[in-house]
């Protein structure tokens, strides 16, 4: 029984916010009435049914209910009471050996707990919480450098990986600093500035010609002064800015190191379409130029250069080495549109002035550095800071060969400054004493800090000129203007980052490129299909954002996006090719994130489905009631050799649940997962699993039964309040860069109220967050957290 107890302990923390899912939210009451009802009705019931293990000093599973009950104590122990509520409501407690609570009394306890918690939440002081000094993560660093300097070569890609916490990689507490990272920062700053100087001031072309200097390379692709080096099959991606609808010419200079009989093959795609497939029959010292034309679709084109026929000779040469075929790409240049002036696209962001008769070098340097540091620090640069930067400039200028190099040195310094690397939010120069109106001693953020929070939340990058200007005019504290800005920002292309970084982590899409499948069982599963799954999920989430749909569409949408391979997997006829299109799904089990190829694949094992993983995923990512992990001593599904032939997966899992210590959690997980058994481990429809017909029926503790995905989604919709809370909490975590605590219930409840009034539209979640105290204020760290 000890094991059982320890399980309960974990359930406590994990069912935190699950109560009253689905039902109308209980209303707050008069606190006196709540306390009186406890003494009169509830305590006697708890005493009869619970106190044997959880009262009079006993705390089985680390749960004790001896509270001297007050509103304050309910506020402090909300998670515990929520767990009690869930346990009683679903009949998981009391256990069989204790006298069961009759139905009428279960309702009594559940109603009282719901109202008691609602009352406690209602009276809970608003607490903005504490976020520590936030280092830019790799994505934020890359984006910020791109917007600050105009060079877009993703310098942070070779920084050490950021650790994630609470499911996201932008959590301030775990974005730590190390000597390695400091080294990377100074090295990156140097090469960024070098590129800026080349791009904005030099008259001679750079050695890395055209776009390839900024190419995002696959890890197998190398680069040196002569260009890109492909020793293995791999690709490099460039994203030049384009004018939608205009025609462009791509010019690529390439060569090869030969091996075998055929020349190195270079495949070039623009926005997913092949524009060039070329054998490169030119030695390295005499590269050839190849051209291709295309019409731009959007504001940038995705140009991918690939090496497709890697080869290594079996027979060694005289020197003992075996030759390998390699592709070298020396230059990628974009010309067009016809008649357009050349290269005015790179508006100067850094060298906004150059010395002239009217402008001395010193004054010019000051102008450049003032503009740059202000944008880099995301607030007006201070006089003493500017002075120090100018000092670097003048020290270097004494013996630097050029004005640009000397300014560059100061620019480099600004990029290693903690004011750039961290998102700084100042404390006030004086302590804010707690008052009844402001019990946490919180203070409002300043305008620039708000602009910064907004832009890193919605764009994962620095504020743009408009936000910056509004901050300067002190307009961002005006809720109306803030909301206008949020709408503008959500429409902007850069909000794609919210989808990539928030949805990509919430739905774990980033893990898709590491998914492996047994090649014999799933020959059709390849990287192309995996990336199509990722694309589907991204386009789908994008449609929710752009069309401002209800967040419940994420569960029960009647449409999705597919291309040829995905349509084939889903059994949708008449769709061919790599282009994605929207399809309507009527009476289909597809639609929504639960039955998407990405989810179904990510929650399966390499050789078979896992109803347990799928159920866990639904509990965690949809309902926000994650099951506790198995205690270490519990074995995973024990498979005896005879099992596989003799019993279905369902039967084997059911046997597993015969053990009550397993059943306590698996009852919740497996039922949900079984409903999805009609989808195999790459998300394809099936009616049987091997020789066993699929039985897609399931039940949940508390009585909901369902069969198949359509009915499962209906059950999830019944509990949509739980989903809404979970979604808000996940997005709040991402927006703030910190974990959600018990004290955040006040904030979350308030956001939920607004979301409900706005028909659960996606934008209302964002608005609720950016209008919350948690987003607009801060406080000092408390001793107890």
């Amino acid at each position, binding site marked *: 029984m000890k094991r059982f107890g320890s399980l309960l302990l974990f359930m406590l*923390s994990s069912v935190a916010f699950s109560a009253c899912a689905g039902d109308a939210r209980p209303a707050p009451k008069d606190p006196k009435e709540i306390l009186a009802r406890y003494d009169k009705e509830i305590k006697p019931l708890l005493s009869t049914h619970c106190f044997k293990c959880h009262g009079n000093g006993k705390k089985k599973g680390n749960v004790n209910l001896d509270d001297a009950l007050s509103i304050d104590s309910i506020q402090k122990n909300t998670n515990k009471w929520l767990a009690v509520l869930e346990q009683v409501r679903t009949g998981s407690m009391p256990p069989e050996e204790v006298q069961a609570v009759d139905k009428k009394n279960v309702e009594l306890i559940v109603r009282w707990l719901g109202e008691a918690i609602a009352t406690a939440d209602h009276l809970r002081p608003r607490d903005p919480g504490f976020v520590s000094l936030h280092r830019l993560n790799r994505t934020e660093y890359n984006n910020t450098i791109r917007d600050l300097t105009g060079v877009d070569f993703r310098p942070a890609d070779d920084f050490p990986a950021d*650790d*994630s916490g*609470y499911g996201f990689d932008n959590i301030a507490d775990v974005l730590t600093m190390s*000597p390695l990272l400091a080294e990377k920062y*100074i090295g990156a700053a140097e090469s960024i500035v070098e590129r800026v100087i080349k791009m904005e001031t030099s008259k001679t072309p750079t050695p890395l010609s055209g776009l390839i200097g900024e190419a995002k390379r696959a890890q197998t692709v190398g680069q040196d002064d002569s260009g890109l080096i492909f020793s*293995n099959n791999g690709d490099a991606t460039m994203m030049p800015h384009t004018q939608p609808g205009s025609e462009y010419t791509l010019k690529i200079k390439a060569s090869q190191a030969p091996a075998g009989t055929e020349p190195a093959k270079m495949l070039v795609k623009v926005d997913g379409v092949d524009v060039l497939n070329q054998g490169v029959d030119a030695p390295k010292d005499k590269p050839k130029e190849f051209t291709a034309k295309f019409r731009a679709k959007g504001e940038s084109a995705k140009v991918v250069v690939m090496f497709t026929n890697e080869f290594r000779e079996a027979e060694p040469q005289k020197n003992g080495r075996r030759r390998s075929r390699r592709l070298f790409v020396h230059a990628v240049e974009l010309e067009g549109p016809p008649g357009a002036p050349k290269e005015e696209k790179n508006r100067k962001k850094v060298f906004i002035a150059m010395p002239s008769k009217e402008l001395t070098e010193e004054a010019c340097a000051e102008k450049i550095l003032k503009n740059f540091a202000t944008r880099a620090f995301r607030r007006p640069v201070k006089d003493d800071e500017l002075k120090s930067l100018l000092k670097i400039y003048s020290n270097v200028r004494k013996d630097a060969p050029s004005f640009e190099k000397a300014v560059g040195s100061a620019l480099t310094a600004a990029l290693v400054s903690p004011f750039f690397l961290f998102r700084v939010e100042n404390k006030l120069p004086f302590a804010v004493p707690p008052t009844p109106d402001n019990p946490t001693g919180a203070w409002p953020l300043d305008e620039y800090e708000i602009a910064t929070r907004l832009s890193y939340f919605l764009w994962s990058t620095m504020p743009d000129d408009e936000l910056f200007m509004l901050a300067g005019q002190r307009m961002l504290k005006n809720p109306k203007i803030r909301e206008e800005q949020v709408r503008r920002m959500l429409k902007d292309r850069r909000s794609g980052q919210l989808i990539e970084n928030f949805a990509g982590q919430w739905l774990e899409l980033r893990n898709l490129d590491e998914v492996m499948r047994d090649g014999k069982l799933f020959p059709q599963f390849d990287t192309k299909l995996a990336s199509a799954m990722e694309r589907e999920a991204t386009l789908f989430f994008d449609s929710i954002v752009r069309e401002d749909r209800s967040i419940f569409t994420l569960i029960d949408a009647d449409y999705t996006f597919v291309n040829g391979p995905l349509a084939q997997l889903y059994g949708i006829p008449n769709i061919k090719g790599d282009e994605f299109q929207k399809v309507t799904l009527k009476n289909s089990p597809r639609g929504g994130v639960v039955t998407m190829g990405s989810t179904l694949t990510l929650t399966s094992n390499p050789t078979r489905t896992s109803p347990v993983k799928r159920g866990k995923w639904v509990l965690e990512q949809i309902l926000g009631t994650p099951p506790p992990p198995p*205690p270490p001593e519990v074995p995973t599904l024990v498979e005896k050799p005879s099992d596989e032939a003799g019993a279905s997966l369902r039967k084997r899992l059911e046997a597993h649940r015969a053990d009550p210590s397993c059943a306590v959690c698996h009852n919740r997980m497996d039922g949900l997962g079984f409903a999805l058994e009609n989808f195999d481990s790459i998300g394809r429809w099936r009616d049987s699993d091997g020789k066993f017909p699929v039985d897609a029926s399931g039940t949940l503790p508390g009585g909901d039964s369902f069969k198949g995905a359509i009915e499962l989604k209906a059950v999830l919709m019944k509990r949509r309040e739980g989903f809404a809370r979970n979604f808000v909490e996940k997005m709040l975590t991402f927006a703030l860069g910190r974990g959600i605590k018990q004290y955040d219930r006040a904030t979350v409840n308030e956001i939920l109220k607004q979301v409900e009034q706005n028909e659960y539209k996606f934008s209302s979640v964002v608005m609720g967050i950016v209008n919350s105290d948690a987003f607009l204020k801060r406080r*000092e760290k408390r001793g107890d957290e």
Partner: protein
Amino acid sequence: MSRSKVMDRRTALKGVGVAIGLPLLEAMMPSGIFGGSASAEEKKSALAAAGMGGSSSKTPVRLAFVAIPNGMWMDHFTPKTVGPLTDLPPSLKPLEALRGDFSILSGLAQDNARAKGDGPGDHARSAAAFLTGAHPFKTAGSNIKLGISVDQVAAKSIGQQTQLPSLELGCDVGRKAGECDSGYACAYVSNISWADETTPMPKLVDPAAVFERLFGKNTGQFDMARKMAERKSILDYVRDDTKRLEKQVGSADQKKLDEFTTSLRELERRIENNMKNKEAVAPPPGFNRPTGIPKEYSEHLKLMYDMMIVAFQTDCTRVCTFQVASEGSNRSFNFIGVSGAHHELSHHGKKPDNVEAIKKIDHFYMSQFGYFLQRMKAVKEGSGTLLDNCLIMMGSGIGDGDRHNHDDLPILLAGKGGGTVVPGRHVQYPKNTPLCNLFVSMLQRAKVNATRFADSTGPLPQLS
């Protein structure tokens, strides 16, 4: 699979081959001590000052720690008898030719990897505790707390004599999305090296990046002195900015800024070294910059092992950790005929198919490690080999992957520690002997002044 995939490593490997036979003392003494142009007399006195003398027996002892995830099938790891290694168990067969160069140390435990009331999350805990001997505070993000790791104790001491105090390597970038292990922050799973209670030392996974860290980005012609002088003035500025910032943020953020200041100081030390030397440490002749992460895992592992070897060989560092895969790794091993994933298989439930698969994976990891030791042994140093002057611990923070026990860990110690260790034996220690006792012994043999580490009860006997 007949693709040509060994290109990257092969290019680099040439270097390891060529450099064989270059005696350490002539070619690559710590560049922090003297520059390339120093006279023989200067070198000698510099050596004396560093307490290293001129004879090969005084060559510095280097420390390396290699962590394997998910435990081992112990029945095939632990020799049947104690004493000299005669009949090697199946998982150790790849080390047959190195029988005299390593010992198996049985009975060691890492107590703080145990739950101690914290419930599940054993993989995170064992990675965290493996080299720190500390019990991680359970959190998904806020208030991360562990302890300094053994390699960092060495880095703060003997590491100060080299370009880099320590080098942290791995093959996994860490989980890209989702939770890491049962409520533990990912920092615990993906870092085995910790500078202090709250600061993990992130690892490099791209061999090209390791090369650049050791030998600089540009091996071509550029004015190192000027560049370093510039860097130094930049750092002065950043330090001033940091002081300004300290006054603007609350007390809780001071800790973060301390981390930053410490990192800057470390960078500055390196820059000053470089300025003294006028040039960066050169890679061994013919040892080229790899072009990136190879596709094949085995090539990736070999290349990272190569990096460790050149780092030691050129005396860029004397302390190195290598996490071959994140703890709880679910890597697939199709290429050795294993279908299924490592972590899932490690919960073998004694099912014969699973156990067979685990044995194959263990064998694979030991073969890669064997490659590493062979290469170390091929590098001559003074009258011995590089391996003779190293102490390399390889093992896992979990014993049996199915039981998740943290006693009777699979622990192997290779190298002679400059003649302070007699390898070639199986030593059985009393049950629950702290693994940290081994760490104390390793530190002492590397001339680090240490008498205790974490939960150690003293040095580990019977090593020499």
